[in-house]
Structure formats: C-alpha cells, structure tokens
C-alpha cells in the first residue's frame, strides 16, 4: 500500500539522518571506550567483563568510576551506589525527554531510555525544541551507532590494555582524574558551580584524610548537593520556573 511505502521510506531516511548526527559522538567517544577497556583490565576486569559492562551499563563516566573503585577493592554495594550516583543526572534527562517520546509504543520507549546518554539527550532535545518530531527511527539512528562502536571499542581497548607494558610512563593511572576534571569543567556554566565544586572538593579531601576512601566520594558529593539545596533559590537560577 502506498501509505506504508511512504511511511517506511520516511522512517528509513529519518534513521539515516540520525546516523549522520551520531558520527561526531562516535568519534568523540571512541578514545574513552578504548581507555575504559584498557583501564578495566588494568583494574582487574576480564575482557568479557569490560565488554559486558559497556553493553549493559552504557555510561562512560560511571563505568570509569566503577572500575576505579573496583581496583581499590571497595565494597560491591558501594560501587553500585557510586555508579547510581554518577548516573543520577539521567533522571533529569529522562524527565525532560519523556514528553517528547510519550507517543511511542511502550517497548520502543523502554529501549529509548536505555540509550539515553548525555549527547543523545542533548541532540534529541535540540531537535524537539526546533519544532521537529522526535521519532523512534531518527532517535535509534542517532543512538545505535554510538552504542555499537562503544561496546566494540571497549572490548578492543581491553584486549589492547593487556599489551601495555609500563602503564606509569604512559600516564594510564592518572588519565581518569584528568578526564573527570574535564567533565567537572564542562558543567562550569551551571549556577552555583564554583561553590559546589569548592564545597565538594574540600569535604572530600577532609573525608579522605579522616574517614578514608571510598567514603570521601559520598561525603563530598552530599556536601556539594546540600550547599545547593540550602542556598537561597535566587542563587541557583531555578526560581524563574513557573
């Protein structure tokens, strides 16, 4: 039937339009996927476990945090809690994107939320704000290549990581703090960024010295979040909401 053909070809071109938009994300995330794989093996993961974590968790920063804590022999529940804490920002993406994809069938929505990463949210939200529909084919075209490259490159990084002889000379052990500092700087336009960073930084160092690792992560994070909650709303830039 003519209508089927039209909607199908429309879906196909939507898919490829999404794929085109995914390419910068694929390129930018490639080094981190390889880095994750190499660091995972360095911290005691097998190649299969590194691959599984990328395929099932699919959240770069949280995977880095997870393997770093794993390497420090932190209690398993605390590793899971840390992964949850690092990924907690997705709650806001989820709340934001929900109204854009509410017209999809439930199974497609369930899949859509699984691949809801930072760039996926940013690009999809930008499309919605420009007045275009966020369709499933387009959304999948945007997200699927990033996902597939991410898991394959993680496995390659894990295989490669076993071959690195001197991780200290290559700086492997200190790449994560550099990466995390980069992420912290990426949020610097947010209201209260500097006070939150100072509070979390100071609290985590004090906790690291007194209570010890890994509690400094939770204690430092709570200190920063509490500061943002306690400060009057007009400082935090959210009071303008209706």
């Amino acid at each position, binding site marked *: 039937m003519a209508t089927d053909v039209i909607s199908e070809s429309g879906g196909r071109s939507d898919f490829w339009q999404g794929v085109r938009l995914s390419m910068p994300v694929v390129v930018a995330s490639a*080094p981190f996927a390889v880095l994750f794989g190499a660091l995972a093996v360095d911290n005691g993961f*097998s190649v299969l*476990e590194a691959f*599984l974590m990328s395929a*099932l*968790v*699919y959240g770069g*920063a949280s995977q880095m945090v*997870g393997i770093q804590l*794993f390497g420090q022999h932190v209690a*398993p529940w605390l*590793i*899971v*809690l840390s*992964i*949850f*804490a*690092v*990924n*907690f*920002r*997705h*709650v*806001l993406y*989820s*709340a*934001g994107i*929900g109204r854009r994809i509410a017209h999809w069938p439930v199974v497609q929505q369930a899949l859509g*939320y699984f691949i809801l990463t930072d760039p996926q949210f940013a690009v999809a939200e930008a499309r919605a704000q420009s007045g275009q529909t966020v369709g499933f084919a387009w959304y999948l075209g945007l997200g699927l290549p990033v996902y597939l490259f991410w898991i394959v490159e993680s496995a390659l990084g894990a295989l490669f990581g076993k071959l690195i002889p001197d991780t*200290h*000379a290559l*700086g492997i052990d*200190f790449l994560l*703090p*550099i990466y995390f500092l*980069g*992420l*912290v*700087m990426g949020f610097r336009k947010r209201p*209260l960024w500097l006070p*939150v*960073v100072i509070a*979390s*930084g100071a609290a*985590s*160092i004090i906790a*690291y*010295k007194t209570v010890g*690792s890994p509690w400094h992560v939770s204690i*430092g*994070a709570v200190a*920063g*979040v509490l*500061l*943002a*909650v306690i*400060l009057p*709303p007009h400082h*935090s830039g*959210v009071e303008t909401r209706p």
Partner: protein
Amino acid sequence: MSTTFWIIIAGAIATYLTRVGGHLVISRFENIHPRVEAGLNAVPAAVLTTLVAPELLHAGPAEWAALVVTAVVSLRGGLMAMFLAGAAVLILARQFVG
C-alpha cells in the same frame, strides 16, 4: 557467577532506573521544588569533583602540570581537546620527573 558479574548487573539496573525513573517519577509532579531542582543540578559537579580533589594530595609536578593545562584548555576547547592536552602534558612531564 563472579562478584564482578553481579556488580555489572546491579550497576546496569541502577543506571537504567536513572534513565527511566525521571520520566516515571518526576513527570507525575506538576512542579519540582526549586531547592530540589538546585540540588539535582549540583549532582554532576559535586560527584565528579570528589573523584579529582583527593588526587591532589599525592600529585607530583607532572600531575599538577597536567591538571592545570586541562583546566586552562577547558576554557576554550571541548572535552576531547582538554583531555588530550592534559594527557599529553602528563606523559611528557613523566619522562622528565617520573
């Protein structure tokens, strides 16, 4: 099944809950309290800072140089540019100061 396997499964479930949970929970409310929203906004910077700050305690000249360069490059470049700049400085500096 190994402990690592269960950490991965539980981490995956926790992550999926954050990705679907905002829609399921927050969308039921007409308004989010401004203080709650301010707290949620602060979550990424607060958590990530705690992963960097304690490293400063045992950072040597090479590590400090790398972090300073990363911060400076971040004012202009994207995540990839600052990461590569910081990593390059770190590797280079470690050849001289160990």
